[in-house]
């Protein structure tokens, strides 16, 4: 459960956000003043601090300054996201110089969108650490840890092939890419894959028909399938997963490559 420090001095506003965060599975600690922020960061571990700039005692900027100046006093310092209404680029730059890790505008996002943004930042920071570790280890000549899973990726749009397969390979999966439904079906029915990820709208043979035909083959009967689509309707996606044709159906515009990787990871972890 991610734990966040939420800095907000208006109790009514704080309550709204805390409710939202808690219902999305966060653990939230709310503090109202600058000094309380510093104390909390010193004493407790947080995954993220959401820092309002206009708070009593010490302003948000001053809090950032303290954290930067006396870094040795705050070994547990979490990532800090400035959660305020910053409009001027100078203010933004100052916060960045003082070590802020990101911004969420209070006015641009509704409370539930703020939760989504926080989730995105957490994932981003998490991935940054992982990537950093990967890069330094590959510099030392070590290969990325292999997960020993083979994935067949079928997609006609080269840019998606590159983007998604890069991310899957970074994660340690062995990925083969095919560029249309017919070739993909041929490859998948040869067997040997732990998962098939396919686009739906493709020339020649579309993803849905491809999977239907794949299910007829001996090798493809039980292989897990994730479908990606740029245009499938939500109801249609539900139908496909209910019919057991696909294990997951994703709207391409709604996911990032990492989201896809998490789904793949979760699937294999649950096996």
């Amino acid at each position, binding site marked *: 459960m991610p734990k966040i420090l939420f800095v907000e001095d*208006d109790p*009514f*506003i704080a309550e*709204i*956000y805390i*409710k939202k965060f808690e219902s999305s599975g966060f653990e939230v600690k709310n503090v109202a003043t600058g000094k309380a922020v510093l104390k909390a960061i010193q004493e407790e571990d947080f995954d993220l601090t959401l820092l309002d700039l206009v708070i009593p005692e010490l302003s948000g900027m001053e809090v950032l300054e303290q954290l930067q100046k006396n870094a040795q006093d705050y070994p547990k310092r979490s990532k800090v996201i400035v959660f305020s*209404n910053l409009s001027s680029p100078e203010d*933004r*730059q100052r916060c*960045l110089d003082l*070590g*802020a*890790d*990101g*911004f969420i505008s*209070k*006015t*641009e996002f*509704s*409370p*539930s969108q703020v939760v989504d943004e926080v989730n995105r930042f957490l*994932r*981003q920071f998490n*991935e*940054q650490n992982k*990537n*950093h570790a990967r*890069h330094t280890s590959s510099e030392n000549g070590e290969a990325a840890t292999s997960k020993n899973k083979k994935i067949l990726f079928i997609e006609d*749009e080269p*840019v*998606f092939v590159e*983007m*998604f397969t*890069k*991310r899957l390979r*970074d994660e340690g999966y062995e990925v083969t890419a095919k560029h249309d439904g017919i070739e993909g079906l041929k490859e998948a029915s040869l067997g040997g894959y732990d998962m098939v990820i396919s686009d739906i709208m493709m020339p020649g043979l579309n993803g849905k028909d491809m999977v239907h035909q794949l299910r007829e083959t001996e090798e493809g009967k039980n292989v897990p399938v994730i479908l990606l689509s*740029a*245009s499938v*309707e939500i*109801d249609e996606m539900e139908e496909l997963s209910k019919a057991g044709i696909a294990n997951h159906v994703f709207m*391409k*515009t709604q996911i*990032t*490559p*990492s989201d896809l990787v998490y789904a793949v990871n979760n699937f294999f972890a649950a096996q």
Partner: protein
Amino acid sequence: MWKFIYISEALYVFLILFELIRALLYKKYLGRKKEILAVCLGVIFFLGFFSWGNIIGSLSSDWSVAQYGLFGMPIFVAFLAYSIVKYQILDIKTLAVQVLVAAITILVGAQFFFVRTPLNRSLTLLTLVCILVFGYMLIQSVKREIQRKEELQKMADSLARANERLKDLDNTKSEFISIASHQLRTPLTAIKGYISLLLEGSYGKVPPNIQDVMNKLYSVNDRLIQLVEDLLNVSRIEAGRIQYNFEETQLEPLVADLIDGFKVAAKDKKLTLKLELPEHGLPKLLVDPNKLKEVLSNLIDNAIKYTKEGSVAILLQQSGPAIRIQVQDTGIGMAPENKAHLFEKFVRSKETSRMVVGGAGLGLFVGKSFVQAMGGRIWAESEGPGKGSTFIVELPLVNTTSKAGKIEKPK
């Protein structure tokens, strides 16, 4: 006596021939020559046939020949019928009036031969002249009338055609939006994906200030993705491909929950955000809660966006056989002429375009479609620009148009 008839018959034939030649020569009758030819030939044939019978009869004293003249009649009728069907040359109304006038003329004209006193004769003559004059005027006016009707008909036809064409264009446009949106998604998805990979450090460490810029890019791109979805929604609504999920819903908590989401935005603009609930609990309604939330949240969002100072109040009340949800603000208001178009696609009133830039003008259009699908109606009231607006959603207590569960609603 007979000679008189022969002469007049010959005279008529020549008159018709003259008219025919005149008609064929003059440009005025261009395009109607065939009709005129058909009718004139028919009349000449008929008269020729008819009179030849009589002439031969009188010359040979064999009157039985005369009756063959009557066979000219079917020929005339045939010509006439052909002309009517083929060229729609006579319309019945003019013909009827002409026949009527002719009949009266003949009747009165016949009187002329029977009356003997000069006074009566002159009276009959006067009547005859009057009838001829008025008859002529009557026929002309009927003709004018018919002409006008024809013009109206033509105009109505071309309007109907124009309307058809407009509908076609609207469909083409919706289709275009749908195709364009699909095509737009591919690059948008790629942008989203690559920015996220960059931000996550997949391509190496990114300095904080560049991360900040890329985070902005990411959220701007997400806004674009949302906009494309909205456009697609519109074409879905127009194609009647929206699915509704009807459930028995208690409105008070739904609205209260919604308002929570706007408290921060309202506080930020120093606006009071109020919710006024009725004293007694409201009955549950059969609606699609998510669609209703979308409609109301759009209204509240607009109210906050377009109000500089004052308050935004949401009122829930039962009014007769319906429940009313009012979103009332002290904002920019609207001119009466804008009210009617507010719920159309891509419409943003002059007042709104000055204050806020975002928004494609789709929210209210989508809202109207949703509310109508739930059996209700939505409208706006305002005293005028600067005097605040009230948006009212009225939902019937008994939703006769839908039943619980998933259904597809045609538009």
